[in-house]
């Protein structure tokens, strides 16, 4: 799974695959490929639900920097 894909894209892609499979629009040739991709997407999404990547310290640091700049602006 590439890092670039975001949750929404992954979820939408998954929904699409499910829909295709549900409607029987998939041929035997692509079925295993699609199922594999769906499994990847599900793993990614499930993982997303239970983990976060945000770093509090990073945000606080950003805020600090902003605040300093603000103060300089005020002066």
């Amino acid at each position, binding site marked *: 799974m590439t890092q670039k894909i975001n*949750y*929404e894209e992954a*979820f939408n892609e*998954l*929904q699409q*695959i*499910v829909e295709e*499979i*549900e409607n*029987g629009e*998939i041929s*035997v040739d692509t*079925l295993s490929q699609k*199922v594999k991709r*769906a*499994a990847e997407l*599900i793993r990614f*999404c*499930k993982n*997303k*639900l*239970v*983990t*976060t990547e*945000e770093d*509090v310290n*990073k*945000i*606080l640091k*950003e*805020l600090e920097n*902003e*605040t300093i700049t603000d103060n300089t602006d005020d002066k």
Partner: protein
Amino acid sequence: MPENSDNKLVFSLSEVAQSIQKTISNRYTSVYWIKAEMNKLNYYQHSGHCYPELIEKKEGKIIAQFKSTLWKDDYENINNRFLQILKEPLKDGIKILFSARITFDAVYGLSLRIIDIDPAYTLGDLEKEKQETIKRLKSEMLFDKNKHLKMAILPQRIAVISVETSKGYADFVNVLGKNAWGYKFFHILFPSLLQGEKAIESIIAQLDRIRKVADHFDAVAIIRGGGGDVGLSCYNSYELARTVAQFPLPVLTGIGHATNETVAEMIAFYNAITPTKLAEFFIQKFHNISVPLSNAIQIISLKSNYFIREQKKTYLNMSKYFSSVAVNLIISNKTSLKQNLKSINQFTGIILKQQQKNLMQYAFKMNLATKNNLITQKNLSGFILKRLFKAEAYNRQIHLAKLLSIEKQVAALNPVNVIRRGYSITYVNNKLLKKHTSVNKDDILKTILFDGVVTSKVLSTHKNKQDDTKN
């Protein structure tokens, strides 16, 4: 008492004050209902007394200003009624309708002593302010702005504006953190005052901070709870409402109170009645994703298996069908071959027999015909022979007769015989003379007679009157 000095009546300051006080108390005997804006409450915690600063404005300018006093007991009574009715304490910047005595104090001067304040008037005024905020936001097309934002389908990162020690914040964090499904949320607290006049500025300041790191968040939650239902009119403030409406992230509120919905709550992306409910809303968002995920797993597994089964079935059916069709085809071909063979045998026999029969018939016919023919030929040749003989005899007779006639004719024609009968033959120049034109005068003619020759000379020639050249 005033003194007389250099013909001047001189009053002491207290005497003037006493006089004014007397005049005023005589003149303003009753209690008056007055409306004014309470610019400052000036509550002194130590004494419990208030010294409200009252003003009246016209077109933004102060046209009247009074000091006033609100004694501790009156203040407490009035404040309690305000809290009950308005859910707001007495505070700076509200319009009040109050009853007061006009007093004058020698030390503190002219003042209004507030006895009572009518909460209904202030309530009406606050409600008016709220309605004005709504109207203005609507006219500026801001009322639905935050609602129309698109929230991330997985709102996982939440900037929380709250008070760390408040029950509302604790509830919110607790529900998010201890959810049974293991959903993980990321949240940072941006501490702020959440009620009272100062909350407006404080919340706006935190929103401004969040705006700077907005990329790290999916939503903002304003959480309050456990602080009672007072001091919430700040959420009707135009400034705060506008900031919320224009915020780049969805702002969700869980302010937790039993009073009417405030403007900030109305314009928020989503308003939950309590912080717990707001946390549940976020969890529901996760469910909305998680359930389709579980469904997806089920659907994919079921459908894929079904699909493969169906394909197998189809394949089996097809191979069965194919084999049965093939076998049938072979059998039917075999049968038809056999039949053909039989037919060929049969027909060959029949045809051969027929041919044999025909041949025999032909042979018989031929035989017969040949015999007949031979007989006919024989007969015919006999007949022809007979006829030939007959014809021959006949012919001979005719010929004989003819010969006889010819003999006779020939005999008749023999010049000797003719000559014998008196005819003669004349030659001229050794040529038989037939026409008189063939001789000229003096030609010598030689005439043969039966018994001799006469030679003569031509005297003349002339043509017969009648043509008798035949003789």
